[in-house]
């Protein structure tokens, strides 16, 4: 019996202690009409050896691809120590640290995470994760609406340069709160929001918050300072949704404009989390200290024990569902703790300098990629503006068709933009992190060239 330790003898003696004869008697309270009938497709249990054979075959089928896609998920270098440590049983098989004294490992680590992530974002406070970057943005929107009591409006200004799927997720998650997501178009020459085009008339009901992405989905750099100041002037809160690796090089949200943003969130995956078909990743969410009581998710506080020693514990739990129930800041309970464990170890191993190098290396490699790809006949850089580690190129033919041909050669060639941005018909979003070698970039370009002609 896989994973069940009971011998027949033990089972019998335990049943005897309980005072029943058969295990089945323990289920006597289930009405007979509800007893499960045999399933239609019974599955044999596999041994670890057999399931290993199956899964190794399947993993091999997906292996050895060369990746030039980003779009919210990036293949960065991950120091080996990160996962060798994070998968230690003591981290891997613990629950949420409800019993603080028996969970100081996880709790201290999470406090360290809060500190590091706040520092990276230039913010005062960080929670210990939400599900992913998309749901973190949704929670940020809900939080902004709750927090901005001055603005009577529940409208949110949402640039179209925010990740298109994030916008859909936000819509799914906030739809029932009477929140209006108002789209803000980008300038078709720059691929960014034009701050000078923003106008708010007197009779405009206003907005609770403006969302600003950095980099924007097209890899470009939004005018974050101007946008932040404009929003603040108009009584809005500012929500940043940013790439954490980029923040080692670019101005972090806490330093945008005069006052910095109010809420910063994003996808934590670039900080030591494998691509893994899209998850598990983790969403981060930071804010000003003054908004902390509106923050969803777990928070760890440093405190003292009976003997005045330092220790760590869950705190401000009154925000959470297990205490506040229907009045909680969010319904989140299980978060993405182990991913945060990995990210914390990752940040400690890379340090500021390593993270900066990763950040800049990705930028420089993407510059190389841009040069090499736009040298191909018929391929053009769509927006001729600065980018961070992604950019859009216009191909001479449909990007999705090209991607399928590249896939046949084990290359993930980027992301086709047409389905989310019909106006960018042949647009392809490409990325080269620090991991991509010159030879790989060259190989990609060569194959692309072949495919295009």
């Amino acid at each position, binding site marked *: 019996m896989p994973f069940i330790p009971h011998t027949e003898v033990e089972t019998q003696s335990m049943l005897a*202690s309980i005072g029943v004869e058969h295990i089945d008697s323990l289920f006597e309270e289930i009405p007979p009409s509800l007893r499960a009938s045999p399933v239609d497709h019974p599955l044999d249990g596999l041994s*670890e050896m057999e399931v290993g054979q199956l899964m190794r075959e399947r993993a091999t089928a997906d292996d050895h691809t060369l990746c030039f896609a980003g779009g919210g998920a990036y293949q960065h270098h991950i120091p080996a120590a990160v996962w060798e440590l994070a998968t230690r049983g003591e981290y891997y098989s613990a629950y949420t640290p409800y019993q603080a004294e028996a969970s100081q490992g996880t709790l201290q680590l999470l406090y360290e995470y809060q500190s590091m992530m706040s520092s990276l974002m230039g913010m005062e406070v960080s929670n210990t994760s939400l599900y992913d970057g998309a749901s973190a943005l949704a929670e940020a929107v809900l939080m902004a609406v709750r927090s901005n009591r001055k603005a009577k409006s529940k409208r949110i200004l949402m640039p179209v340069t925010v990740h298109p799927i994030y916008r859909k997720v936000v819509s799914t998650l906030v739809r029932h709160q009477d929140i209006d997501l108002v789209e803000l178009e980008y300038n078709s020459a720059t691929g960014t929001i034009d701050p000078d085009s923003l106008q708010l008339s007197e009779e405009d009901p206003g907005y609770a918050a403006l969302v600003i992405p950095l980099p924007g989905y097209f890899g470009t750099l939004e005018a974050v300072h101007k946008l932040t100041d404009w929003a603040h002037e108009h009584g809005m809160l500012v929500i940043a949704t940013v790439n954490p690796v980029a923040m080692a090089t670019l101005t972090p949200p806490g330093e945008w404009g005069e006052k910095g943003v109010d809420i910063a969130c994003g996808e934590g995956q670039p900080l030591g989390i494998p691509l893994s078909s899209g998850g598990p990743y983790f969403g981060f969410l930071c804010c000003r200290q003054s908004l902390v009581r509106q923050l969803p998710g777990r928070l760890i506080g440093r405190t003292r024990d009976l003997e005045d020693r330092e220790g760590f514990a869950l705190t401000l739990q009154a925000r959470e569902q297990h205490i506040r129930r229907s009045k909680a800041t969010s319904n989140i*309970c299980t978060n993405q703790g182990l991913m945060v464990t990995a990210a914390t170890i990752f940040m400690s191993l890379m340090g500021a300098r390593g993270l900066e190098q990763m950040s800049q290396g990705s930028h420089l490699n993407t510059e190389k990629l841009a040069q090499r790809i736009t040298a191909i006949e018929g391929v053009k850089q769509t927006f001729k503006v600065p980018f961070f580690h992604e950019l859009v190129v216009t191909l001479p033919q449909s990007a999705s068709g090209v991607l399928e041909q590249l896939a046949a050669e084990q290359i993930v060639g980027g992301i086709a933009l047409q389905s989310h941005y019909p106006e960018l018909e042949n647009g392809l979003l490409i990325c080269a992190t620090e991991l991509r070698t010159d030879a790989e970039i060259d190989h990609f370009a060569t194959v692309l060239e072949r495919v295009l002609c």
Partner: protein
Amino acid sequence: MLIFERSEAGRFNSAQRIAGQESQALRLEGIPQAMRRKNSLQLPEVSELQSVRHYTQLSQKNFSIDTHFYPLGSCTMKYNPRGCNTLAMLPGFLGRHPAGSEQLGQGVMASLYDLQEILCEVTGMKATSLSPAAGAQGEFAGVAMIRAYHDARGDETRNEILVPDAAHGTNPASAVMCGYAVKEIPTNSEGDVDLDALRKVVGPQTAGIMLTNPSTLGVFERKIEEIASILHQAGGLLYYDGANLNAILGKTRPGDMGFDVIHINVHKTFSTPHGGGGPGAGPVVANERLAPYLPIPMVGEEKIGGETIYRWLGEEDCPQSIGRLSAWSGNVGVLLRAYIYARMLGTEGMERVANYSVLNANYLMKRLQKAGFTLAIPQRRATHEFIVTLKREAKELGVSAMDFAKRLLDYGHHAPTTYFPLLVPECLLIEPTETEDRETLDAFVEAMVTILGEAENSPDQVKGAPWTLPVRRLDDVRAARELDLNWYQRD
């Protein structure tokens, strides 16, 4: 000692430098000055050994399944098979970009598809979406689906979700996120939903009810068919909170009980690790009625020639879907672990999970009862968990459930869930799970008995606990009052 306190200005773990960046002058002309980071980034500056030693030592301060008995009620802390971890972390799975072509993902997609099928089968439902990242997101999805169903029928007066008072906090919180008002239903002394009370509040304003079965009181809701018919007759739907599915796997199916949609916490029943907080995954499974509203993406199967091809189902395939819950397709790595586990169990193994989790719970309950502890619902059979109430001990000896919990740590057992469900005073919700052996259960009983003796003879021993852990009892009030959440912002 914090990692920051090990930091020394100028130290750099250069093994993790990025190729070429060390020697190259930074060439950031492409990035306008105004956009560059000005205040330099502060992170700990430690050597690799310092980091490895720090996080290894820290890990040893945790209790975990791999080191301790962990009978945390409602959380199903059973053995997380190492094989699931190793196989889910094969390079082929870890390296796949989520936007990669379906051609390059048939291995993982086949596994996800199979898992969808298994979850349908074990719950007696029609279709599965794997995308919710945890139970609470599954709840949101399920309730949103209920809402989408009513909306699609133009039935827009329904603005209430019913929730028993024993429910987990996520239930009301999720209902509210879906725009519903929450109405609490009382539980009777037998641990069942009070049917009279239920009948009174059900009406045309009722969108649905959220139930766990077995409930968080550790008993099976015997009147579930009646509840279903009350709801369905009133036009409401039934949501099943799958947190306690472990107790009934292969024994009875939510679909047969009359539920319309359920979520499954794979980090409970399907033994994916909880990782000190997460990640989990909370697949939602729906019957015919609600299947069209499942969140996207899902995995579909097509037979082309002799071959099976898997593909993502999105908006075009599922036009009535409530939409997307995450940027990609949920916690795939977690789902792979759940799939591997499910395949190792097979159909028979699932029923064995229920058998032995229930056996362990009833055994432990009986032994504790014989040892003099008071059960919350002594007249009922336990399911996979049960409740001890220490009301008497708290009153007579001044030793609370929390004191018992902390003292258990000294004896090498993680504490059960305390003070949940809210309606039972001074309670311990105890869930041993099927993967614990009898010796361990016996040792737990022994510890409980010893603590009871201490509570009678030297209560300070219990009230001052824990004594042997890295820290003594922590000051939660101070933590909340003198907020210290960020080392870099400390005074």
